[in-house]
């Protein structure tokens, strides 16, 4: 029975064998739907009873505009919508920066949160908050809205470059060195941030604490506007990095042999990681583990081809962060749990699980 297959069908299936791109495209389609659904739920649910339906009908120009309550509009347009957009941007940025970093370091355990890149970005952002009203005031005035993202980007860039320098020798990245150097960098960033906390006055201290816990609370349109450009830039760059990162999985030599300008690829990837991490750290503090959980789950289902892995990571990361935000808003309502706690509670055990499965490749 099994031996009976139509010749044409068999040919087709052997031709496409080992190619998971059809499945990857389907998965991306489903992830788009998932994100739309998650976003809709997050817009509809909240502390107040604002009616999303009425407001949306109002946007579409259907029905009587007067029937839409002004308070409903305010809740949806000025509170929930920026929070949802911010969550999507940050979730996408976190997941993509994880996937990019894993491709760059040729290692599934690399993640900006774990190896101290977020810490570096955080330290620079804390510097901007605390010193921004004093020594750095002129610079802050020039940068305006973008001061915090810019500072975080600079910190993220410096730490990614330093980490890459330390962990990679002659084109080979040592996992052990990468993780250990990451611990040291995270500790240093933590200590630096601690010193700044000591120096801070009351108002700055409140800013710092609020920001450092990792939260989407206080999302505003200006915040969205300040981080949208760098994150969108990174999302666009994925298209140009994907093929190179695939080849880089074979090693730097083979990647060069198939025609990839390896040095330029690595520099672009480092800048992209720093942009995405910096932008998300600047407005939401340190939110860990999204960058490691999302790409890993996707690799299990669609494989490691970056042409699909990167966009799929952006979509799933956005959905996951919206879901985590919904949990953080509701689980201890009316108070809010910092979203960084939610992602760490899920992500840290997951990270340990990956470690246990891949213990062999750590060569410690």
């Amino acid at each position, binding site marked *: 029975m099994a031996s009976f297959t139509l010749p044409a069908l068999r040919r087709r299936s052997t031709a496409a064998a080992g190619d998971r791109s059809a499945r990857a495209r389907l998965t991306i389609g489903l992830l788009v739907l998932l994100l739309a659904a998650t976003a809709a739920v997050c817009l509809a649910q909240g502390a107040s009873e604002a009616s999303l339906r009425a407001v949306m009908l109002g946007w579409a120009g259907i029905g009587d505009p007067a029937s839409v309550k002004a308070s409903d509009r305010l809740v949806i347009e000025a509170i929930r919508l920026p929070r949802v957009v911010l969550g999507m941007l940050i979730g996408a940025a976190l997941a993509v920066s994880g996937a990019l970093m894993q491709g760059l370091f040729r290692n599934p355990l690399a993640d900006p949160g774990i190896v101290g890149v977020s810490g570096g970005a955080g330290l620079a952002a804390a510097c901007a908050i605390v010193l921004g009203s004093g020594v750095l005031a002129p610079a802050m005035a020039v940068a305006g809205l973008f001061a915090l993202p810019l500072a975080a980007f600079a910190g993220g860039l410096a730490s990614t470059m330093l980490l890459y320098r330390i962990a990679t020798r002659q084109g080979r990245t040592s996992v052990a060195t990468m993780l250990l150097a990451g611990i040291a960098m995270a500790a240093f960033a933590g200590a630096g941030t601690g010193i700044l906390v000591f120096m801070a006055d009351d108002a700055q201290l409140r800013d710092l604490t609020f920001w450092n816990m990792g939260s989407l609370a206080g999302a505003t349109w200006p915040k969205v506007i300040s981080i949208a450009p760098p994150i969108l830039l990174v999302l666009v760059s994925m298209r140009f990095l994907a093929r190179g990162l695939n080849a880089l999985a074979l090693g730097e030599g083979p990647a060069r*042999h198939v025609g990839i*300008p390896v040095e330029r690829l690595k520099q672009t990837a480092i800048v992209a990681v720093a942009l995405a991490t910096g932008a998300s750290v600047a407005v939401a503090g340190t939110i860990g583990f999204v960058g490691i959980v999302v790409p890993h789950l996707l690799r299990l289902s669609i494989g490691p081809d970056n042409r699909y892995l990167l966009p799929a990571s952006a979509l799933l990361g956005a959905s996951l962060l919206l879901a985590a935000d919904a949990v953080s808003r509701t689980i201890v309502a009316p108070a809010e749990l910092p979203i960084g706690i939610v992602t760490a509670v899920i992500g840290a055990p997951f990270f340990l699980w990956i470690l246990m499965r891949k213990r062999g490749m750590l060569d410690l």
Partner: protein
Amino acid sequence: MRVVAKSLSVALGGRTILADVDLVAEAGAVTVVAGPNGSGKTTMLRALCGDIAYAGKAFINGNPVADLPPWRLAELRAVLPQDTALAFPFTVGEVVRIGLRDAAVLSFTQAADRVGEALRKVDLAGFSERMYQELSGGERQRVQLARVLCQIWQPRLPDGPRWLFLDEPVSSLDIRHQLAIMALARDFADRGGGVIAVMHDLNLSAMFADRIVLLRDGGMEAAGEPAATLTDRVLEKVYGCPLRVGAVPADSLFVLPQSVARRV
């Protein structure tokens, strides 16, 4: 059209690995580079690939290697590395596809056919769905060769020959696949391409090479047709080991690739 090195020298970490080597490899021929461990074989190949900085001159089809951008080099030559570990769980088919430079102009089915045919050439038909990381060393080496073949599918294009650089292509293969892979290299040269292979196996080299280049201590010791280079005197000097070419041992068993009864 040829690959030419003129007084090629390479120093790594302050140590001279390769000194003043001249090499000419013709298209349509298999050129084997042999020599003891540490004699500079792989270093020479890496310099010709454009991987490392060198002093002296190196040309592929008349173009200075150091001046060619990566994409242009990738059109002219493909390189089979000694050992490739993969960081992520790619399937065999996905690995081979990475070599497909012209994937954009091939349709989905054409690309898949190309991958399938490359795998068939290296005797791995039906392996596309297998996970690369789960294969044996010899199978991985053949997957990499399939990838490399995809990169320069046509041995000769209107603007000149393509080059296949092989770094110990049979190091982890059984004898049957050693013969098959060498025959594949031979076929690539017969169809107009050029092959430069770093080899340890002198029997296979004698069997398949048009020209053998012997290196010792970073310098060239001998170069020419197999019959002219594989002589008692040269081999003793190069390997420091009193080898006798063509001498049949009186009382020990031996199996030579040359003795294969029919083409595999």
